């Protein structure tokens, strides 16, 4: 391919397809469907993001119909890959119950497994997470495990059969960006299964920096939904994920503590 074809990140090809558990996805950006002002805005944002994988939560039907919460009336399951989460579950058995309910909806056997350990930080309970992962893997689930940026837990989740490990950039909904790039890089270097950073991305530069660590993808929700203009932010995140991915593949220049001139130092005029 000539470089004339490489003018925009969107036309660059990625030498590695984005594959989880043998299934290839068209975008490395996955997005959540919570917290939008309206279903119409959510759909427009998803379209602008180019995401194929969209996450959904399992909740009781509001029998009084005070809210139009049912998302399947708005999302075409033939066009998007619905990834159910177990958000809001604070122990392994609740998370397992929610995962089973989600699978019974009949779309797929995939689950974004969350076992939350603390209401203030929403940090994961990694002991419960590991326990739930083992049970669900035994039941044939494809488990994508939301976890800390902790290598040992990530290795244990992979060992337990998780098809992807999803370390956080920073706490859910915080928008603080990636707090520990070293930990994220280490996890990516040591795991064989895809590493998808989940949570904490607040703006496009955060997404770009995450992808520059070499991870396989990003899942975000609040960073888009809570922007002043979610649709525009969704499009920005799409560009940022692509830019970060290609910057990683391109290989950045080394950091130096001293300046190195960009222009020739010879050929200067005489005094």
């Amino acid at each position, binding site marked *: 391919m000539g470089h004339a074809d490489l003018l925009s990140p969107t036309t660059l090809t990625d030498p590695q397809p984005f594959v989880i558990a043998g299934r290839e996805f068209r975008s490395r950006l996955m997005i959540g469907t919570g917290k939008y002002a309206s279903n119409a805005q959510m759909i427009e944002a998803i379209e602008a993001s180019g995401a194929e994988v969209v*996450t959904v939560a*399992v909740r009781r039907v509001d*029998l009084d119909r005070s809210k139009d919460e049912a998302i399947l009336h708005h999302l075409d399951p033939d066009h998007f890959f619905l990834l159910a989460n177990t958000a809001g579950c604070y122990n392994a058995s609740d998370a397992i119950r929610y995962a089973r309910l989600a699978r019974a909806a009949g779309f797929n056997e995939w689950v974004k497994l969350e076992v939350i350990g603390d209401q203030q930080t929403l940090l994961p309970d990694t002991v419960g997470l590991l326990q739930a992962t083992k049970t669900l893997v035994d039941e044939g689930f494809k488990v994508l495990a939301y976890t800390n940026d902790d290598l040992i837990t990530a290795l244990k989740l992979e060992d337990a059969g998780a098809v992807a490990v999803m370390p956080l950039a920073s706490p859910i909904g915080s928008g603080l960006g990636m707090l520990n790039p070293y930990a994220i890089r280490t996890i990516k270097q040591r795991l064989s299964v895809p590493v998808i950073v989940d949570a904490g991305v607040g703006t496009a530069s955060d997404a770009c920096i995450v992808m520059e660590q070499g991870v396989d993808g990003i899942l975000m929700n609040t960073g888009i939904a809570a922007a002043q203009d979610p649709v525009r932010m969704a499009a920005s995140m799409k560009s940022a994920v692509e830019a970060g991915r290609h910057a990683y593949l391109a290989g950045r220049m080394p950091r130096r503590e001293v300046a190195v001139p960009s222009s020739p130092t010879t050929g200067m005029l005489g005094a």
Partner: protein
Amino acid sequence: MMGTEVFETEIALVVNGAERRVPKGWTLADLLASLELDPRVVVVERNSTILRDRSSFASLALASDDAFEIVHFVGGG
């Protein structure tokens, strides 16, 4: 003693955590229809067991004190 016999025409269930009285003889399909719920977009758990086979809803008779959880997908991250 015919005069003192109470003839029950309704049974009490718990649906999504709230008590609900329905006519005796109703099936799960009747319950969902009365709630205007499309069985294809909900998942039903009865007494902590998920009912995977939606075609069974029309023949599943509701019993007194059954506890149902009716869930669906909503927006979430």
